[in-house]
């Protein structure tokens, strides 16, 4: 490999020898094309005409009045496919095309990345396989059906808890046996180098746009940027635009599940210890010996025991702060935004909103907050229905 792929001591590429040639090929291709004029031009056009970028920055007036400070939502939920995932799948999918690969594989938790990959598989006419845990298949059945309609094969993973971690394990195993013609389209800013760097690059669009929109619309930078963190791709995407703006506070919100003390959560940065999983040195939820813990969250997309290496670095350096929101508060936030703004947030970004609600009345009214609304909540309606039945 040309680069170490480290963020401080985090990251790297802890993978079996057999995967090294594939990662080298990917690294070479990424650095060759990511600034290539033709590649950039083609990606720009797709992001605009296919995905619907730029996404709006929306002032959520009623929600702002409720919490007592100014909240702007970066509307990634309005993109094609309903989430920020398409930024990355278009980027990596196009890279796969430039590399001459004909097959795509991807892991998925909530199904948003799986769907965004299936869309791109259809768009480029590539054979697509999506690895998804059985628990997630059950709780995100609408997305599963959409993937199949796009022509993707959805492979059900029984291992472990049947969630994102297990899907990644099996996608990595499959890739090991099919490295020659298959492109592994990784969905989050984690995993082995070059994925954290590459996914960050394709998602950095969110932060660049948001920064510009703040300056144009509000005339100044925000005080706080907040985003949910599972693997951390939407968060690193929006944070990256503000990293050099030292006065902008960056806050990542992890899945607090039932509660941190119950052990039933997925708050890796809040409660984890440094370890190695899925090719990277990262904070990790694990037992004393180093066996990886089972996680729990109402949101499939955050239900992951590791986290992107750059977030680990940002936590240690103090540049970003990470907190956790519990399932109950997340469901409250889902209901509140829907009632006040007519916007159904996905349960993942509802974590960021839950944090903002927890700050109600605690911040100066002139405080400007940008929250990354990374996906829409249609996929979660049945979960919300089950957890919070409506009274007739």
């Amino acid at each position, binding site marked *: *490999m040309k680069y170490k792929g480290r963020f401080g001591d985090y990251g*790297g*590429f*802890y*993978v*079996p*020898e*057999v*995967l*090294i*040639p594939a990662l080298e090929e990917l690294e070479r291709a990424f650095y060759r094309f990511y600034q290539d004029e033709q590649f950039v031009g083609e990606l720009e056009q797709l992001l605009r005409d296919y995905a619907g970028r730029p996404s709006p920055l929306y002032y959520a007036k009623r929600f702002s009045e409720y919490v007592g400070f100014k909240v702007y939502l970066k509307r990634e939920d309005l993109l094609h496919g309903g989430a920020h995932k398409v930024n990355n799948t278009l980027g990596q999918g196009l890279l796969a095309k430039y590399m001459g690969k004909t097959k795509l594989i991807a892991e998925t938790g909530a199904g948003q990345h799986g769907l965004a990959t299936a869309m791109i598989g259809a768009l480029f006419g590539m054979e697509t396989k999506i690895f998804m845990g059985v628990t997630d298949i059950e709780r995100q059945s609408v997305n599963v059906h959409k993937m199949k309609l796009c022509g993707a094969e959805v492979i059900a993973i029984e*291992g*472990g808890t049947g969630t994102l*971690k297990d899907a990644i*394990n099996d996608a*990595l*195993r499959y890739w*090991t*046996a*099919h*490295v*020659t013609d298959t492109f592994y389209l990784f969905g989050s800013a984690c995993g082995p180098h070059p994925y954290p760097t590459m996914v960050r690059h394709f998602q950095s669009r969110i932060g660049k746009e948001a920064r510009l929109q703040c300056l144009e619309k509000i005339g100044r930078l925000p005080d706080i940027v907040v985003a949910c963190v599972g693997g951390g791709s939407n968060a690193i995407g929006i944070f990256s635009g503000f990293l050099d703006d030292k006065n902008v506070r960056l806050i990542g919100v992890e899945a607090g599940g039932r509660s941190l003390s119950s052990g039933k959560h997925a708050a890796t940065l809040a409660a984890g*210890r*440094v*370890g*190695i*999983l*899925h*090719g990277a040195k990262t904070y*990790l939820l*694990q037992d*004393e*010996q*180093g*066996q*990886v813990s089972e996680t729990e969250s109402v949101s499939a997309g955050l239900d992951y025991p590791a986290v992107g290496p750059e977030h680990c670095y940002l936590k240690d350096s103090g540049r970003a702060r990470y907190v956790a929101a519990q399932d109950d508060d997340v469901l409250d936030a889902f209901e509140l935004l829907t009632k006040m703004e007519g916007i159904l947030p996905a349960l993942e970004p509802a974590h960021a909103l839950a944090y903002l609600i927890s700050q109600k009345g605690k911040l100066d009214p002139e405080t400007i907050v940008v929250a990354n609304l990374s996906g829409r909540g249609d996929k979660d309606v049945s979960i919300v229905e089950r957890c919070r039945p409506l009274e007739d």
Partner: protein
Amino acid sequence: MKTYKQVFSELAQANRAALIPFFVIGDPDLDTSLAIVKTAIDAGADVLELGIPFSDPIADGPTIQKADIRALKSGMTVRKALEFIRNIKDHKDVPIGLLMYYNLIYQYGKERFFRDFHQAGVNSVLVADMSIDDADEIYDAAISAGLDTVFMVTPNTEPARMKLIASKTTGFIYTVSVLGVTGSRADLSDVVEGLIAKLKKITPVPVCVGFGISKAEHAAAIARAGADGVIIGSKIAELIERNLSDKGKMLAEIAGFIGKVRRAIGNSVAKPPNESFDPAQDGFGGLNI
């Protein structure tokens, strides 16, 4: 403590490849696992590959994953694995290679891990999820603990990289016969002979071949192709899985399988047979050296 060097040079004189079975320590439970490994030694294993079970074994196929889960469910821990190895070494002094996922070593503490396990009788530690690029992270600690090094070479490893890997290897090269994860396969990969020949040209370090070897014929073909050792894992885990309700039958089938592979290897010498060595008289009890 017997070294790889001693075993491979003895076997070279006997003109036979080493038989190296792999076991997940504690599969299906501690006591049965001890009985299984001792049975394998008695049936003719020359070297042991032992894995401490990990929750997320990304280099392993479904069979070994299930073995890991069985072992973890029965309460296997890194500490108990230390005891296990001491117990095996009391039974017979055969070299032991550990097959590990890095996080378990990292959490235990690298230096302490290598020291404790070497003292218990381990000869080498192969980290499945660490390539030669990151070997520096563990190399010094392993060497100063007195361990030999074992690294993997796969069918897609470039020649320059093979040389680099060979230059850092003091034990043996773990040659992966297929692109993919561990697991029994019906047919032997057609790239393996070329791979052995390539490695033999660039290094005098012993070359052992694993992944996908499930039949005595496979083992024999690999020995004929010039490999110094044959590693068999998933097939044995399958025999364990299939006989979970009958331990006696489990042990008998494992002994039978290992004996059969041992005979097949014994009859498949790469070079012209050494006159003083008669495979027919070489029973299940290992070489009398």
